[in-house]
């Protein structure tokens, strides 16, 4: 009876495991599918510790199942078990073997901890200053004089030194595909060194509870070949088109300057919103909605419905034409 139940549980657990093995996570978000050398090192350590721990688990479960089956009370049995006090030999065995296993685990752990903290040579490194705000990310390239938000572009194969700054509350900067996270701590500058082994778009997350919009504080990492990256860099450095070409865009620019520029160009240092330079090239709005005019309208009219807690005010007082003009102007920011 009892044995049957134990097997039933085992069956259930293995069923769940098979089900889970079916889904392996998304290649742009999964720790188990590393795309950078930091993530690779970390995954190696995960597998090494998982392997060791699985051995321990199998040993414990084997003894466990054997004991439960072998020594359960059978019907009509009334035996007096021997009152054993212990066994020094056995106890030494299960003290010493785990210590050995832990040493085997501790050596690569300490090694990797120091490896990951080691700064690469400065001349080969791209430096990016990341700042976490409630609930968006700013990326500055001090070497190139570029500022952008929500989407960070990096060259494939190069070491990227992210210097992480905080201005309001704690956040945590995490790109699972490229490597582990580091906390955004106001008043400190933390660093994390990542790289991408192959071109692609990887998803970034905020991993520390930072308020109502925490779940939606996403960003994207665009890993590009050097040539593509340079092209992007040049495009970013080109000045924005100063004169709008059509009259509705010109009107949009006026509306933008009347309503948006206070936060979005950093005029007021106490209120800062994302830099909207080359906004039309971004793939998302607010880091979560796919970029199209319809979503832009939804966002402008009621940002809180998209991202609870965002500081962006509702722009619901513009009439239809004004809103369309504003959107046209934003679309021209390439």
């Amino acid at each position, binding site marked *: 009876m009892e044995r049957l139940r134990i097997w039933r*549980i085992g069956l*259930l657990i293995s069923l*769940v495991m098979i*089900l*889970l093995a079916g*889904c*392996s996570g998304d290649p742009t*978000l999964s*720790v*188990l599918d590393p795309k950078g050398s930091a993530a690779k090192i*970390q*995954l190696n*350590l995960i597998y090494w*510790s998982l392997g060791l*721990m699985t051995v*321990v*688990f199998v040993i*414990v*479960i084997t003894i*466990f199942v054997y*004991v*439960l089956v072998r*020594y*359960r*009370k059978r019907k009509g049995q009334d035996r007096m*078990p*021997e*009152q*054993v*006090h212990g*066994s020094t030999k056995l*106890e030494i065995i299960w*003290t010493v073997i*785990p210590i050995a296993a*832990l040493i085997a685990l*501790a050596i690569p*752990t*300490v090694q990797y*901890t*120091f490896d990951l903290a080691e700064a690469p040579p400065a001349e080969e490194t791209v430096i990016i200053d990341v700042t976490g705000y*409630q609930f968006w990310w700013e990326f500055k390239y001090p070497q190139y004089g570029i500022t952008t938000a929500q989407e960070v572009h990096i060259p494939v194969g190069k070491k990227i030194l992210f210097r992480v700054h*905080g201005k309001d*509350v*704690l956040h945590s900067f*995490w790109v*699972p595909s490229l490597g*582990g996270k*580091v*906390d955004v701590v*106001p008043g400190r500058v933390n660093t994390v060194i990542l790289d991408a082994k192959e071109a692609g778009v990887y*998803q970034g*997350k905020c991993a520390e*509870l930072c*308020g*109502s*919009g*925490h779940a*939606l504080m996403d960003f994207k990492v665009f890993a590009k070949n050097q040539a593509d990256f340079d092209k992007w860099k040049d495009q970013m450095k080109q000045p924005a088109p100063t004169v709008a070409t059509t009259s509705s865009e010109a009107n949009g620019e006026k509306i933008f300057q009347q309503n948006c520029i206070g936060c979005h160009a950093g005029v007021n240092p106490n209120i800062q919103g994302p830099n909207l330079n080359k906004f039309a090239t971004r793939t998302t709005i607010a880091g979560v909605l796919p970029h199209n005019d319809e979503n832009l309208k939804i966002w402008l009219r009621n940002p809180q419905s998209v991202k*609870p*807690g965002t500081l962006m005010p509702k722009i619901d007082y513009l009439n239809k034409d004004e809103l369309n003009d504003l959107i046209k102007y934003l679309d021209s920011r390439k």
Partner: protein
Amino acid sequence: MPTLIVLLVLALFLAAIFTGGYNKQFFERVRSSRTWDWLTTVDHKKIGILYLMAGLFFFIIGGIEATLMRLQLFAPGNELFVGRTFNELLTMHGTTMIFLAAMPLIFAIMNAVVPLQIGARDVAFPFLNSLGFWLFFFGGLLLNLSWIFGGAPDAGWTSYTGLALNEYSPGPGVDFYVLGLQISGIGTLIGGLNFLVTIINMRAPGMTFLRLPLFTWTAFVTSGLILFAFPALTVALLMLMFDRLFGSNFFDYTMGGSTVIWEHLFWIFGHPEVYIVILPAFGIMSDVISTFSKKRLFGYNSMVFATVLIGFLGFMVWVHHMFTVGLGPITNSVFAVATMAIAVPTGIKVFNWLFTMWGGEIQFKTPMLWAVGFIPTFVLGGMTGVMLALPPADYQYQDSYFVVAHFHYVLVGGTVFGLFAGIYYWWPKMFGQMLSERLGKWHFWTFLIGFHLTFFPQHFLGLFGMPRRVFTYQTNVGLERINEISTIGVAGMVIGTIFFLINIVYTLRKGKKAEADAWGLGRTLEWSIPSPPPEYNFAQTPLVRGFDALWVEKEAGNKSMTPSEPLGSIHMPSPSYIPILMSIGFFIAGFGFIVRGIPAAAIGLVVVFAALFLRSFDYDHGYHVEPEDPEKGGKE
């Protein structure tokens, strides 16, 4: 403030109406009512039951909060509870489960069992015992009132500053957290001190430290941890209270403060707290496994040593909650190695349990089922614990669902399974009735299956890139199916808990009466006296002649313990209304601070000081009872 007075008057009116109006006998009647008896009791057995009921009540509230969160996460883009509401749920779930469910349930069992296991008539300070309970209870009540007075705290149970400061959490939510926990924390600290003194001073003749049952040992070490860990929380909460109420700047970085200080203080308390709630579960395991295997605990001395070592190392590892804060590779490595070291004494315990069962005659009564379910579940939680101790790997796990899975395996698979084992095991001793075995087995199996279905998949959620404390997730990134499974699993735990409640109600109405040695296999002192025990526990203090004191007598062919003193009258402490009065004072003061009503806060503090004054000049020396002679067939 007027509201409070109106409520107070209303309560007095209601009391009068239901007891027959005000007249000379009113106070007499109140004093002889059962409610008054429970409110003023200083008997450790009754306080244990109060802790049990309050703990179960908050356990259910915390469970409802968890269920609501899992419903929101059932599908991406759900709009049941988003943004702030979800953050309130996750904060209150964590805070309630740790401080208001796990802690009181542990105190429930400690109160019910420790004095009996050491052969004492009560704890060392019965008055403080009552005060500890009422402070916990009113603190918990205050915290939960936040739901109807301006919103619950929403900065997480860790309440990391930055977010928990006025600027980012306006409104009273976090104030409820600060003052509610401060008040209930004082209660916990008092409780811990009380048990330390009790175990050191109140042991029966012959009950040396190395003859203490394992549960008492773990209660002892846990009380020590409470004594050293809770002051860190008290200090942190006080600093946060000053930041929020009086404009100080301990944690505001723009004014030279630091959020990292909060993280350190919180985890210097928070990590030992994990051991505070898990060690008693280890103790319960040891007693239950030994009893139902009909065998002496394997390697008693090394079990005691492992317990003390875990308690000690528990203070050396708090930075493993902060590997991603950027404290540098040296700090991270030191704390990583210290954390891994804890696996060794924990492993010793697991193997000792296995070898206690080895060669025994295992009976799968409900407490033993929980103990048996505990072992593989807890070992899984311990495994992921070691994996989390490695900083490079932790950079990936930290604050993801992997961590959520890990600590639920430890806190539910460890603490809650342990507590259920303890409740089933000692229920007959506490209430004099056996819980239904049949309902107990339904409870166990549904809860166990539901638990694994909920939390096992969450390891994968974390590895697939889902951060914790999020109210939604994207579609098409491989997270939907796993979240569905996880939410479905909750149903198992809910059904299990319902079976448990049915079991309690059923047993209270028509449960089977329990013998003194309720399971017929008792090894320790509590099974040598009637179930439930008389007011004074032991008519004659027993003489302890070895580890497993009752078992030693059984082996020697004795039916009961040898007494160590002649039969005589027993001195008992008088009940007192001062603990509950003082706690109400704290409650009013806390509430006053929260609503920034300084007069109310002042009145509350006046009540507190009045109660202190009353207590100081209280010349009540208790009373004496004449025990019934067990030999002459008194109460059985």
